[in-house]
């Protein structure tokens, strides 16, 4: 066999398109199996709708419908009342990977990379060959714009199959409807996802029709949108070399000092001068003229100088009152609900914030059968994780939030727990992390990466909420004991009344009534009398001594 020359190799070597790469690595985007694929499609569309509505200041109304059109092929329709997308943008939003508005800015949002919905288009065409159909209505246009498209895996560009304006009034004033057809398998996780989404987005109204035609409504629990989060300039602690270099090239600032104060958050002229001093770089050097070695020195200095923490108005937590309302709406039978919104903290220069919700003692309809309230359960609590209001449905055990829950000593809060595991009991535990940049373990965004600051804050939040739970549980325990105590007295009352009637020759009914009244009047009184009862009769050891004195038979 002839040897290949370098030239021949060169003919074979070519750029791999991103689309081709993802086609071969579907799992990296979360399409590992048919069940997950179906959920991913719903999730990407719903997340986008929520982001769009929130940014446009519209209270979201989202409709999700799943139809099983044949065997393992499903049609998923998601519509919203968002602002819609102008016709020029539609193809790229739905038909080009890594296209989006959210990647290049630091602001809390559900989507981050601009991969999500276009990857669904890609997955749909790979599994069924069907195009993704989009209807869009923007307020300024009279007609609904309709597009059918594929994603060209070689060029990573949209292939438009059909495009037209239609008169038919299928959307309100504004909004988007997207229809995707793909191979999938239907599981209840879709409904769980929507339910959890409704918890973390209490201002959203979601209606859902499952493949068997069952309709389900997730109403709003609050009527107001959260305050829109601000876009944040990067914080010096969170910048990497490449980013810094790009910023230096693009800046309009003329000196290093002004570059630092203008382009970064929390950097005043004091800190800027300090950075220059530590880096041993003149503060009036022109940013565009800095060489690689200088940039490195500056970067190092930026991360060693003490700088104020970043501003936190770029975060949009659910809010403890809102989360509580939302949880009470979703679990109306819960005995006890408590929520905590922690103060923001920072990891690697990115502000983040943790919220905790505890729902205890819910009575749930399981298979139409009501669970008994007192039924002992050894099942682990249900952990509901959110990142920027998005439910994290998979990879629970790989997630830093889960680790934090396991590290907490739940026994302190009157919960059962085998050490190092999730606690057990009738409880749902909500953990929400929001950040301008949530560090995920992978692109499928299912598990939060383990940063010590994130674990620490999560634990502190759980401990705050745990203390409230603990005081509720010990109160409940006391009340339970009180109830049992009174039951004992009530049980003996008739016997006592009869005996007293015999001893005093009075009518037992009247004694019994007085006794029962007395018991009722003592509901809040504990056994406050000394317990000398145990001394009344000879103790066990003494009895043994006495027994020994009996002669053998």
């Amino acid at each position, binding site marked *: 066999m002839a040897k290949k020359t370098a030239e021949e190799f060169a003919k074979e070597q070519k750029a791999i398109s991103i689309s081709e790469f993802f086609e071969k690595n579907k799992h990296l985007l979360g399409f590992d199996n048919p069940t997950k694929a179906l959920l991913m499609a719903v999730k990407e569309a719903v997340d986008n709708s929520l982001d769009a509505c929130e940014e446009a200041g519209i209270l979201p109304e989202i409709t999700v419908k799943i139809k099983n059109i044949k065997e393992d092929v499903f049609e998923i329709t998601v519509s919203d009342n968002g602002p819609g997308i102008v016709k020029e943008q539609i193809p790229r939003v739905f038909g080009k990977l890594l296209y989006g508005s959210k990647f290049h800015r630091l602001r809390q949002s559900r989507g981050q990379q601009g991969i999500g919905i276009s990857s669904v288009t890609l997955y749909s065409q790979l599994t069924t060959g069907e195009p993704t159909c989009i209807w869009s209505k923007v307020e300024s246009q009279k007609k609904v714009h309709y597009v059918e498209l594929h994603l060209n895996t070689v060029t990573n560009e949209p292939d438009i199959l059909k495009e037209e304006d239609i008169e038919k009034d299928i959307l309100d004033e504004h909004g988007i409807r997207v229809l995707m057809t793909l191979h999938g398998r239907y599981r209840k996780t879709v409904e769980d996802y929507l339910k959890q989404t409704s918890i973390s987005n209490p201002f959203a109204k979601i209606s859902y029709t499952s493949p068997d035609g069952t309709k389900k409504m997730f109403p709003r629990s609050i009527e107001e949108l959260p305050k829109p989060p601000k876009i944040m300039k990067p914080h010096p602690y969170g910048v990497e070399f490449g980013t810094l270099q790009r910023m230096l090239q693009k800046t309009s600032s003329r000196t290093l000092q002004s570059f630092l104060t203008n382009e970064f958050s929390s950097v005043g002229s004091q800190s800027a001068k300090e950075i220059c001093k530590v880096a041993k770089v003149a503060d009036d050097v022109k940013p565009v003229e800095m060489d690689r070695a200088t940039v490195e020195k500056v970067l190092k200095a930026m991360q060693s100088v003490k700088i104020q923490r970043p501003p936190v108005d770029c975060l949009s937590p659910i809010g403890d009152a809102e989360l509580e309302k939302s949880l009470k709406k979703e679990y109306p039978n819960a005995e006890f609900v408590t929520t905590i919104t922690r103060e923001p903290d920072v990891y690697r220069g990115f502000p983040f914030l943790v919220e905790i919700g505890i729902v205890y003692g819910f009575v749930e309809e399981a298979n139409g059968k009501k669970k008994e309230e007192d039924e002992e359960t050894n099942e682990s609590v249900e952990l509901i994780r959110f990142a920027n209001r998005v439910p994290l449905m998979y990879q629970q055990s790989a997630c830093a939030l889960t680790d934090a829950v396991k590290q907490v000593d739940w026994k302190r809060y009157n919960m059962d727990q085998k050490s190092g595991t999730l606690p057990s009991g009738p409880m749902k535990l909500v953990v929400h992390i929001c950040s301008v940049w949530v560090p995920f373990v992978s692109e499928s965004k299912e598990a939060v990466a383990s940063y010590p600051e994130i674990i620490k804050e999560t634990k502190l939040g759980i401990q705050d909420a745990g203390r409230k739970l603990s005081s509720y549980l010990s109160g409940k325990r006391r009340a339970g004991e009180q109830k049992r*105590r009174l039951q*004992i*007295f009530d*049980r*003996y009352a*008739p*016997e*006592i009344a*009869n*005996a*007293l009637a*015999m*001893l*005093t*020759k*009075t009518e037992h009914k009247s*004694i019994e009534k*007085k*006794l029962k009244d*007395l018991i009722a*009047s*003592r509901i809040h*009184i504990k*056994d406050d*009398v000394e*317990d*000398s*009862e*145990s*001394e*009344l*009769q*000879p*103790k066990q050891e*003494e*009895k043994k*001594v*006495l027994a*020994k*004195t*009996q*002669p*053998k*038979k």
Partner: protein
Amino acid sequence: MMIMTQETRHANEVRKELEKLGEKIVAEIEKKENPNIEIPIRALSNVVFDKKSNQLTLGDKTAKRYFFNVAHSKKFMQSLLVASFAKSLIDENIHASIRDMYYNLKRTIDDSNENTFDEQSESDPIIVDIEVALDVLREQLHLTTDRKGIVAGNVIIRDRGDDIDWSRLGSGGWSIPSTVEEVEFKKVDAKFVLVVEKNAGFERLHEDKFWQKQKCILIGTGGQPSRGARLLIQRLNDEYDLPVYVFCDNDAYGYYIYSVIKSGSISLAHVSDRIATPEAKFLGLTTSDVFKYDLKKATIKAKEVDIKRAKELLEYEWFSKNPKWQKEINLMIEKGVKAEIEALSHKGLKFMSEVYLPDKLKNKDFLD
């Protein structure tokens, strides 16, 4: 014509005590207080040795059993059940055994799966609680136990309307009932009372007509004496001034039986003054007797537990203050032997009644 007998007088007093208990609790209920029964504590911590009377008696520590205390509530209820049961017995002038009472009161409480009493071992101590709380005897509550103990002698008594002559009961003797309070003595012709620990010893002496020859009353207790037997001994001592001699095995158990007759027991310390006989003396068998009467071959080697028990007895207040007893018990420990009263038969079947006992009595060879 209604004659106020001793029996009815007792009954009225006890009935009154029971009624007072009920009225006190009803009053507490009406005053919205925590109903309770005050009961003297019967644990060792409250049992004292009264040096004046040489008896074990209860100290003055009491405890209250409250209705509104989860730990007490059931016993409170049980105490009232027992009290009301006793009252109904007295009202109807009938007696019941403590086992009858247990079965009569045992039932499942309405709307629950809990029983008023689960075992007789629950109801028995409650009876004693009522006794000490009201300062009455179980016999006065018309509660009886099994008959235990036999008696023979030149005595005529009246029991529930029948005259009984203890000298004319053939081979059996009279079984001592659990209640002897109400027994009336009509004729007592005896110089002393001889209490024998074992029924076999009683049979031997009865057959030998020992009580006739020695002019005594012979009582066999069949082991630890019952309350009835103790009360009978006490009454004969108290009412007829008869000396009481106790004849037991030579071992720690025998000594303890003597101490129970003499000073009372820990578990019945509350009734010591009514059923103990402080004047009782220990006749035998002693370790010294074993050597004196050459019974060495009929002894049994003392086991570890016998020695241990004997050492405990040395510490008992009523033995520790007595040098003679200290000497005897120490001798027994030293020799490491014990002897049953039947050991005397080693010297011939009639040795006990014809040699040993007359000898001891004549020499007044007793331990106090």
